[in-house]
């Protein structure tokens, strides 16, 4: 760290607190965050829907649902066509047992299979992605390393050199302008001198003529 006095620290902190991002950038960032929230929520909902859809796609679940419908229809028909009222409790128990025995194992089995498949595929995808990411990262880091060592360290120097070159160029232009002005001045002085010499020669001739 360089040596900085207290006033300088205060000054820098003040300058830091005065930095304001442009309103355009602020709006863009807020909009992007909003879209991210919406997408994140959608992707979560999508995952839940996919699980249920995949469960109901299965033929076992379809069969189980058909069995439930048939049992319900049979129960309704039996109840309507029965000569005398049946024991409701008995029927309920029978129906529950039948439903449990036919539906529960099938759904459980199906759910386990579906979840297992989903987890396996998710795991395979994420592990492949991780592997690929890692390879890319390593490759990127290796290729960047050599370039970064020279480029990053010289960036500020380059920019300052550019600034310095601009300043030198401006000074050189000013110098040229001054030289041009001086040359012009010399040219004018020369013309004046020539005129003076001509006048002097003429006056000398005149004087000589008068004396003769």
């Amino acid at each position, binding site marked *: 760290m360089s040596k900085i006095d207290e006033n300088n620290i205060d000054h820098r902190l003040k300058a830091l607190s005065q930095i304001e991002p442009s309103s355009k950038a602020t709006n863009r960032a807020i909009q992007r*965050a909003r879209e991210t929230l919406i997408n994140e929520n959608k992707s979560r909902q999508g995952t839940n829907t996919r699980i249920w859809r995949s469960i109901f796609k299965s033929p076992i679940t379809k069969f189980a649902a058909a069995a439930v419908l048939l049992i319900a229809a049979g129960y309704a028909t039996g109840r309507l066509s029965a000569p005398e009222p049946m024991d409701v409790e008995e029927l309920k128990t029978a129906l529950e047992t039948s439903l449990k025995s036919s539906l529960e194992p099938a759904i459980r089995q199906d759910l386990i299979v579906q979840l297992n498949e989903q987890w396996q595929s998710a795991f395979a995808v994420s592990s492949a992605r991780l592997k690929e990411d890692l390879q890319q990262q390593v490759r990127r880091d290796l290729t960047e390393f050599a370039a970064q060592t020279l480029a990053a360290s010289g960036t500020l120097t380059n920019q300052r050199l550019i600034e310095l070159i601009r300043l030198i160029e401006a000074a050189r232009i000013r110098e040229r302008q001054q030289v041009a002005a001086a040359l012009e001045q010399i040219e004018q002085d020369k013309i004046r001198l020539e005129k003076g010499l001509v006048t002097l020669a003429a006056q000398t001739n005149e004087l000589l003529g008068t004396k003769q």
Partner: protein
Amino acid sequence: MPDRQKELFELLDKSGANLYALLTRLTLREDIAEELMQELFIKLINSRSFDKAGNPEAYARRAAINLAFDWRRSRKRNPLRLDQIREPASNDSSPLAKLVRAEEMDEILNAIGQLKKVPREAFVMRYVQQESYDYIAEQLGKTSHHVRALCSRALNRLRNLLGSNQHKSSGKET
């Protein structure tokens, strides 16, 4: 989850601009601040402790400050390439003045990054966000007197870090 999303939308409407300004001041880059803002809200929607947080705004600010200083640390480890360098965020106009100013601010922000989390948060709120001691105390769940002491100690630590060539601190203090 819809409740969380609704709460985050409200937070975004209420404090989104402040959080973005804070991230810009701590990174000195609008493009990076935008990235971190997105990352912040992904973190918040997936965070389990966000629901338990008594003050969502303070929680989000703390997460934003941590993200910004994590970015500063990772940038030190992986220096930028020439093509990755963008114009630093600054209010000056001349390119040379901007560069000098950005370098000075980088130096002071790196020193702030060496403070511990709680004093760092209090210091950032006081000196970077220019918040009052009472407001900071309310947000951090501390007394105003405690916050003043935290800020004062953090400022002394910062002066030590920036004021001496010999005293190069390797660990965190304060």
